[in-house]
Structure formats: structure tokens, C-alpha cells
């Protein structure tokens, strides 16, 4: 396949041309006046800037909660963000509804109107395009916190940033690998280049817009090296378009030494690669964490609390700036207000109590995890560069085709899905099937040994059946399935 997209900054004139088409997609596009918006952004207080809020949390040694929330009706959305901020939250994500994400603005409009009429939310998020800049500024002006849209593509991001949101949360590999069935990675990169370029445009004019980056999220038990490589790729793509603040959004998998190692390795390697490609002035103001939600079944309330508290504990010990803990309703459906409140109250207890102690800890084996992960991430990235002849984007597209970037249980038909992860006998995530992941033999042997160890301990073969058992372990108060 011939790819046309390249790791290269979009020319400004071309970009401004592209913008016209984007803004014409829906009437509220007219509300975006870029120069006025830049000015508006430059006058925002530090408390509304995602980068500065993150930096401040780092300086103060605090870990905050990074929730997920968004509701269609404006007044309700304002009430919601006020509740979150009153609960101490400083990074406020605005989850955009599924219709808007899928470019069905007409349908979103109807559902929004129906929501207003019936008083019942008929959309699973905030239809930012239908609301436009004026309304969305009301949301942002209602509280002291930094905003980021979730699931925003071109026009949605235009409106988000013009309204005063200060992070352009978007990740090509995340979109490609978790939300899309048929869309190509090339296409996903194109969309991100636009939003990154937009963030860069603001940044160049003195309004720092960060981008928080998920990478290819692990589905099930899967070591984080593919994810971290993806975070670095997406960050380099963003930096090339002028983004000067990137925030990795990592994923816990539940094994403390690994999770803490990953928290250290990811920003270190990210810094190295940013420097290597000349993005020395792109900063990493902090790291955000995500509780892996796989998969407490709804019935088990004690387990749901334990899981989220454990995640908060690891985030606090890892000194992350914020953590997305799943509510106790995670396995049951969309969380109620009460479930949000209870869950964050619980996690906040842990975050406050642990961070106040300024704990510095060493876990036996953490260095090994760091070393292994680092070697894996480097192997992937170097192979990507090789495939792309030095171009990260071209290389990534080829890498996915070749299975050099791969992930199990993926919705996208373009992903090889030839890899599998499994727990070892102490609960660490190991590769069971490497597919075409380009790891050195000694690294593969390390994984094989760990898997063999568990085979001996349990007296059975580690195979797909066990992978599935591992999936459900946390629902059964365990870290290892079986």
C-alpha cells in the first residue's frame, strides 16, 4: 500500500485552507474566530491551563482524580463540572457523544433537542459541535479547572480549543486500535495531524495547548511496551505539528513492580526520543494514569472498591499527577452520580493519605521490568524507523501491516492480532505469543522462562484458555486466573 501521509509539519497556508472546509461542516463552525480565540486562551489563568495545572500538581506532590464525564444538556453539563471541581478535581474531561464522534451532527442535534424537551439525556456525551463556542465557554467559565475534550476530531477540536479547553487529547493509535473497525491508521494519523497542528498554532502564539496521549491501549493482560511505543510515536507526530506539551496517559495492569516501572520508563524514553528528533522544547509536564478496567463483574461491590483503591494506591506510589479510576459501577453500566461521588471519595482517601507521606520506594524486580520494557520499546521504535526510512508515520503504518505493532482482541480489521499476553506466576504481564513483535531473542527468552515457570507451578500448559482465565482474575479477587 502506498501511503501519502508523512511525518512533516502541515504548511500554514495549506492548514488554513483545510480549516475552511472543516469549519463549514456545521453552522457553529462560524463561531470560531482563530485570532480572537488565541487572545482568549492567552488571557486564561494558570488554573485553566492543562499543562500548568499538571505541572503544579507535580510540584506540590499531589495525585488528582481524572474522571470521565459529559452530558448533553448545557445546564446539566455545567452542574456536572461544578460537582467535579467541588470534589477537588482540576483536570476536567468533556466526553463527547458517540454520534458526534461518528460525524452524525444532524442526529446529535435531534437527540440534543429531545434531551432538552424530555429532560432525559438522550446522548452519551456532550455534543460539542451542536453547542458551539459560546455555550461551551459558559461551561469552562463556570469553574476553575483545566478542560480537555475526549473523542474530538477536527471540527470538535476547533470548537473545544476556541472555547478555552487547553489540551487537545487525541491519539491516532488509540482511535485506530480501540474505536475503529475499518478506518486505516493512515487516516487516523491525518486526523491527528490536523488537531495537533491546531494546537501548535495556538502554542506558537503564546497559548500552550498540551495533548494527552493514550497510545495503543492493551486489551486484557498485555505488557505495556506496545502502548509506550505508541505514546512516543503519537507524541512525535504531535511535536512535529508544533505541540510543545505532551502528557502520556499510561495504563495499569495490576502488577506493582511493572506498573511502577512503566511509569518511570515511559516519560524517560519519551524525553529521549523527543530530544533525538529535535523537539527539545516540547515538555512533559506530568503523567496521567488509567486503571485498567478489565473486568470486575457488576455484582462484586467489595471487589470494585478494592480494585479502584488499589489503582489509586499504585498511582500515588508512582507519583502520577492524576489517575482515572473506574467507578464501582464500571462493570454494571454508566455510573450514577452517587457511584461517581462514592468512588472518588474512596480513591481520594488513598491519594491524600499516601501522597502526604512522600513515599519513595523500591520494589525488588522493578529494575528488571524497566530494563525489559525499555529494550522492547526501543526495538519496536527502531524497527518502525527502519520500515519508514526514518519517517515515524510511514514506519508505523508499515509496522501495523507487518505486525511489528500489534495488540490482541482488537476491533480493527487492519490489525494483525497475532499476539497474546498472559500473567506469570507472580502476576506480571508477559508475552505468550510474540507474533511479529521485533524483540531480541534474550528478551523473548525472559518471557518464555517466566511463562514456563508458571507452567511448572500450575502443572499445565499456558495457552489461550489460560489467557481468558487471566482476563477475569480481578473479578475473582485474584491477579492470576485459574
Amino acid at each position: 500500500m502506498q501511503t501519502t501521509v508523512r511525518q512533516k509539519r502541515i504548511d500554514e497556508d495549506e492548514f488554513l485552507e483545510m480549516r475552511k472546509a472543516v469549519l463549514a461542516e456545521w453552522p457553529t463552525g462560524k463561531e470560531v474566530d482563530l485570532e480572537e480565540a488565541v487572545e482568549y486562551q492567552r488571557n486564561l489563568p494558570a488554573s485553566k491551563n492543562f499543562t500548568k495545572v499538571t505541572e503544579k500538581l507535580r510540584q506540590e506532590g499531589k495525585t488528582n482524580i481524572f474522571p470521565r464525564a459529559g452530558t448533553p444538556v448545557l445546564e446539566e453539563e455545567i452542574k456536572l463540572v461544578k460537582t467535579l471541581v467541588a470534589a477537588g478535581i482540576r483536570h476536567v474531561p468533556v466526553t463527547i457523544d458517540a454520534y458526534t464522534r461518528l460525524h452524525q451532527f444532524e442526529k446529535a442535534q435531534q437527540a440534543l433537542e429531545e434531551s432538552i424537551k424530555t429532560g432525559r439525556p438522550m446522548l452519551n456525551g456532550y455534543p460539542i459541535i451542536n453547542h458551539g463556542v459560546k455555550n461551551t465557554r459558559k461551561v469552562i467559565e463556570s469553574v476553575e479547572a483545566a478542560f480537555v475534550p475526549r473523542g474530538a476530531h477536527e471540527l470538535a477540536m476547533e470548537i473545544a480549543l476556541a472555547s478555552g479547553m487547553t489540551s487537545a487529547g487525541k491519539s491516532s493509535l488509540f482511535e485506530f486500535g480501540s474505536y475503529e473497525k475499518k478506518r486505516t491508521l493512515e487516516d487516523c494519523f491525518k486526523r491527528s495531524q490536523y488537531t495537533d497542528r491546531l494546537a501548535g498554532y495556538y502554542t506558537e502564539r503564546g497559548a500552550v495547548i498540551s495533548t494527552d496521549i493514550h497510545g495503543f491501549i492493551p486489551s486484557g493482560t498485555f505488557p505495556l511496551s506496545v502502548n509506550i511505543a505508541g505514546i512516543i510515536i503519537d507524541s512525535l507526530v504531535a511535536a512535529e505539528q508544533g505541540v510543545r506539551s505532551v502528557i502520556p496517559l499510561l495504563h495499569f495492569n495490576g502488577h506493582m513492580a511493572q506498573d511502577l516501572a512503566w511509569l518511570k520508563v515511559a516519560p524517560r524514553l519519551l524525553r529521549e526520543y523527543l530530544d533525538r528528533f529535535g523537539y527539545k522544547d516540547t515538555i512533559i509536564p506530568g503523567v496521567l494514569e488509567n486503571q485498567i478496567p478489565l473486568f470486575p463483574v457488576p455484582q462484586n461491590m467489595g471487589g470494585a472498591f478494592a480494585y479502584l483503591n488499589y489503582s489509586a494506591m499504585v498511582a500515588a506510589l508512582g507519583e502520577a499527577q492524576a489517575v482515572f479510576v473506574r467507578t464501582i459501577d464500571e462493570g454494571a453500566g454508566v455510573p450514577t452520580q452517587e457511584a461517581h461521588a462514592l468512588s472518588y471519595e474512596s480513591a481520594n482517601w488513598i491519594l491524600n493519605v499516601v501522597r502526604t507521606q512522600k513515599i519513595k520506594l523500591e520494589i525488588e524486580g522493578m529494575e528488571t521490568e524497566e530494563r525489559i520494557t525499555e529494550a522492547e520499546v526501543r526495538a519496536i521504535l527502531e524497527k518502525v524507523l527502519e520500515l519508514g526510512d526514518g519517517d515515524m508515520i510511514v514506519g508505523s503504518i508499515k509496522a501495523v501491516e507487518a505486525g511489528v505493532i500489534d495488540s490482541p482482541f482488537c476491533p480493527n480489521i487492519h490489525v494483525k492480532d497475532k499476539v497474546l499476553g498472559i500473567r506469570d506466576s507472580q502476576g506480571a504481564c508477559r508475552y505468550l505469543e510474540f507474533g511479529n513483535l521485533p524483540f531480541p531473542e534474550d528478551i523473548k527468552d525472559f518471557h518464555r522462562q517466566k511463562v514456563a515457570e508458571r507452567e511448572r507451578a500450575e502443572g499445565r500448559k499456558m495457552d489461550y484458555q489460560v489467557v481468558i482465565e487471566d482476563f477475569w482474575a480481578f473479578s475473582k479477587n485474584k491477579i492470576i486466573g485459574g
Partner: protein
Amino acid sequence: MTRKPTIITGTVGMDAHVIGTKILSRAFRDAGFNVVELGCLTPTDEFIEAAQETAADAILMSSLYGMAELDLRGFKDKCREAGLDDVLLYIGGILGVSRHDFKDDEVKFKKLGFDRVFPPEADLKSAIEDLRHDLKARGKI
């Protein structure tokens, strides 16, 4: 089984959750079924076409994002119109929106024409037994 029954799997509507249907597909394949796997983000019409084309015995649908009820209004009628009266309809996943009683889902989706409804903690081994049982009852195996 004397004959290898064919089943259609997939996640319906605009729902991108794919893990469950992937696991389910493999489990049924390993149990000796012929599985046509449509993956996530699959419109109802695609389920029907696939069932027609393969003369399927059952459709095993998943939904997690809470909008299954909307997605599936009129689905049973469409099946009838397509001459799929005899195809067993199973559904599983997270079928309601907020924390709720699974019994409500069961009633709701049975009304929508599904023969069996499964909760998120459904055991696939017993689901396989259920399907075998139902196919036997209909003289299909």
C-alpha cells in the same frame, strides 16, 4: 454433533466493544461450530445478510454500550421478513444503561424476540450447552 451448525456472531450497532464477541466466537469454534464472525460495529442488516447467505442456525449477538434496545427495535420482524423465522436469536453483554437488575434485560429482550438473554458474567460453556440443547429441541442436530 452429527452436523456442524453455523452461527453468526458480532457486536451490533455503533458499538465498538469487540473483546466479548471475539472470545465467544473462538469458544464456539473450539466447540465444533461453524462461526461467521462479523466483529464490532455491525449493523443489524449485516447480521441478517450473513445468516441468509450461510443458512445459519443461530445469531449470537453482543452489545455493551447500553443502546441495544434502540438498535434492535423491529429486528425480529426483519428476521421474519428475511425468512429467518427459524434462526435462534441469543444476545449478551451489558444490555442496560445504569446499574440495574439483569431480570429486566431478560424480559425486555425476550419481548424483542430473543430466545435467550445472557448477563455479563455468563459462562460460555453453559451457553454452548444451551445452544446445543435448543438446536436439538428443534431437530437441527
